[in-house]
């Protein structure tokens, strides 16, 4: 599929795009999940301490 002329420029362009998209998805989802969990922990601990 990638044996065409200029493959050495086309393949890196698509690979870098895929890596950056993967990073954006992973970081965004992890950020949201982390703070959601943190909020749940804090509200649970404050409820049990009352």
């Amino acid at each position, binding site marked *: *599929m990638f044996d*065409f*002329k*200029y*493959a050495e*420029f*086309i393949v*890196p*362009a*698509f690979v*870098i*795009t895929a890596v*950056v*998209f993967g*990073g*954006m*998805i992973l*970081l*965004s*989802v992890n*950020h*949201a*999940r*982390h*703070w*959601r969990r*943190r*909020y749940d922990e*804090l*509200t649970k*601990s*404050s409820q049990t*301490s009352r």
Partner: protein
Amino acid sequence: MTWAPAFLSNPERFMAFSRWAAPMFGVIAAGLAVAGLYLGFTAPEDYQQGHTVRIMFIHVPAAQLGMFAYACLGVASFLSLIFRHALADAAAQAAAPLGAAFTFLALVTGSLWGRPMWGTWWVWDGRLTSVLVLFLLYIAYIALRASMDDEAKAARAGAILALVGVINLPIIHYSVEWWNSLHQGSSLFAKGGPAMSTVFLVPLLLMSLAYMSAFGSLWLVRIRGEVWRRRAEAAALRAAAG
């Protein structure tokens, strides 16, 4: 326009909306990307660009989204500055890293296209330099926000920087008309309609819509993350106060 501030002024309504809208936009983006990439890779070679025309299907949408994300950052910053609303500020903060990533992709894929077509990785012309300035504006915004502990002051300073940077958007758009440039003029929004063949136009439009949907999905996820972070920090402060 009255719905936008009203929508932004209600975090609960936003959280309920984004809970189903974020995955929906993600699925739409994936579907459009599969179709766009299939048509992009099965399209014939361009008579001038050869196979490198396929880089255009990821370069042009990245450049469009780099600018669109900055416009979103600008609008959210304006609303945050005027109405001092936390959700508008969260939207601005969430847009910056995404915009930086899209602009980075536009610069890198453009460079990978430029080397075989122009014979150089980079030229300091109006279009390329103004897009580099856009990337640096994103980095400056992120660094400014990260350098300040006071959330309200960081929001205000960030909003002012973002609004000053909005002037760069028309400069990017008109740079190819105002100055001599190796970069080609507008093809999609040219006078008299798109200046390209349908075999290239269709995959390009599909990929543009895919990038737009992906940005919509990721932006909503990041705003949700910001809302949870602020709620968690407020809960931590309440717990510390006893």
